[in-house]
């Protein structure tokens, strides 16, 4: 059978399960198109509110509309990617409570992959699409002094941001092993976090910004690296110059921490009495 490699096995299982769900949603093409379009409209309204705000003011926390759109696009797209990939993991609490996690444990695939791919919803791609559109607008409309490094940083931020949000999703799921009703808490960090990041850090209090930067390193999704790209000061005074290039490190750190939390959570699973 050879050596067992959880990562490749996990990705394979993920592909198989997600593929099955995609095929099943696509059997009802019309309904899929409707929900995807509906999602796009709803998330689209989100940015419209920001645009409307700018009809009253010229700057928000010192950021112009294209600059806010830059933050928004980065946050929404990376969150959308994470949500698409493992957003389903927030249903873990219910599985733990009713013991249906048992079933995942007797399949020859890592549990996280199965949980994440369960009910893989292609319509979540709507958020990615909307985020990308806003980001595209920002890139065209803003007058950034582009350098090769800055150009590379944009896709880099999306990947790292996606990884950081994914880590938050996984950590939240792991927490649900202990507190099965914690999906609300998790949403506060994921959905709440991404909404927070859509606005310039300068509109928030220093304490909040500090918390977001150091306790839940969400600020590395966009605030810090975007400040570098936009040629603005970092949201926190004390941050070193290289902090803009820290996202890959932060992402790796977050993923490692989330993986540990997940393993600890899974180990604490004790099924139910029936």
């Amino acid at each position, binding site marked *: *059978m050879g050596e*067992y490699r*959880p990562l490749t*096995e996990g990705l394979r*299982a993920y592909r*198989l*399960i997600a593929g*099955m*769900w995609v095929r*099943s949603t696509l059997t009802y093409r019309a309904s899929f198109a409707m929900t995807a379009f509906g999602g796009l409209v709803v998330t689209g309204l989100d940015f419209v509110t920001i645009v409307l705000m700018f009809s009253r003011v010229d700057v928000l926390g010192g950021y112009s509309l294209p600059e806010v759109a830059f933050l928004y696009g980065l946050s929404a797209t990376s969150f959308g990617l994470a949500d698409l990939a493992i957003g389903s993991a927030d249903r873990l609490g219910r599985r733990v409570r009713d*013991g*249906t996690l*048992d*079933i995942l*444990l*007797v*399949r*020859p*695939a*890592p549990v996280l992959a199965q949980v994440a791919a369960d*009910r893989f919803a292609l319509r979540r791609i709507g958020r990615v699409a909307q985020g990308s559109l806003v980001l595209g607008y920002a890139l065209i409309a803003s007058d950034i002094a582009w350098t090769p490094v800055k150009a590379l940083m944009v896709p880099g931020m999306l990947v790292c941001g996606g990884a950081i949000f994914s880590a938050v999703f996984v950590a939240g799921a792991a927490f649900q092993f202990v507190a099965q009703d914690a999906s609300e808490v998790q949403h506060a960090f994921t959905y709440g976090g991404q909404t927070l990041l859509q606005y310039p850090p300068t509109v928030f209090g220093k304490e909040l910004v500090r918390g977001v930067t150091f306790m839940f390193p969400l600020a590395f999704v966009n605030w810090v690296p975007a400040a570098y790209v936009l040629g603005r000061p970092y949201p926190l005074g004390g941050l070193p110059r290289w902090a803009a290039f820290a996202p890959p490190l932060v992402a790796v750190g977050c993923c490692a921490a989330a993986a540990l939390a997940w393993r600890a959570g899974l*180990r604490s699973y*004790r*099924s139910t*009495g*029936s």
Partner: protein
Amino acid sequence: MDAFIEVDRVEKVFEVRRRTGFMKRVKRQVRAVDSLSFTVARGEMVGYIGPNGAGKSTTVKMLTGILMPSAGRLRVAGIDPSRDRTRLAHRIGVVFGQRTTLWWDLPLIDSYRLAHRMYRIPDARYRENLERCVELLELGALLDVPVRQLSLGQRMRGDIAAALLHDPEVLYLDEPTIGLDVVSKAKVRGFLKELNAGSGTTVLLTTHDLQDIEQLCSRVMVIDHGRLMYDGALAGLHEAGEGERTLVVDLERELPPIEAPSCRVVRVAGPRQWLAFPAGRSAAPLVAHIAAEYPLVDLSVREPDIEAVIAKMYAEKAVS
């Protein structure tokens, strides 16, 4: 005879916290499985019975790697289930009567197709197994129905097929006949019998329906309060449980209760009398004695009711 499943002094203790007031909690330990030891050889078909809360499901969960034992040693096909869960998964099949392993919102066939890929079942083998299951479990008309629309009995048959597509060496069934009608039960039993005889699959069967055991298992294990109370042939249960056989005697006329060694009269109705005697004993001396002493017209022997035997066993345990 190689031991395929080895359970050696295995324990499972659950820590249960109960809220007794605001912020106040008491911890209590529930010993679900207590120093349990047994082995099952390859190809055996074993019935695993016991009253509610005895620890049957907990044992199955430890054998499949869902739960880690609190103490003791457990091996299935030489693998430690909780440590090597994913590797073991390729070699075992599990059916939980209480919950389905199928994908709830998708057509039945999707669950099978996914298993095909996930377990890396060779195409020819998959087709062959699926065909056989579909035929024997009569799933043909159900393959395109979403699992949530299946009736309990249909779903259970679907679950059994799902557990067998990858040719598992051992099949665990936790109450596979719960809630099934007589016809479905017969179908499932026939299928399991054939599976065990034909493919040599080891089967461990948990049930509350003793007919399952009577019809399928040559060996039965009885567990109560997490401890093994009996392990052996089904017939032996009668003696272990102090079961009694009944001799029904028709006399020529009404007579006072018969007096004979090592038996007692349990009922008298006109010329007919019912005598109970230990199941382990031969009826011949008793019959000879009665024939010699009384005007005998007819007689018949009734085997003990296995349900009664086991009920008695459970009850005795509860008292002690």
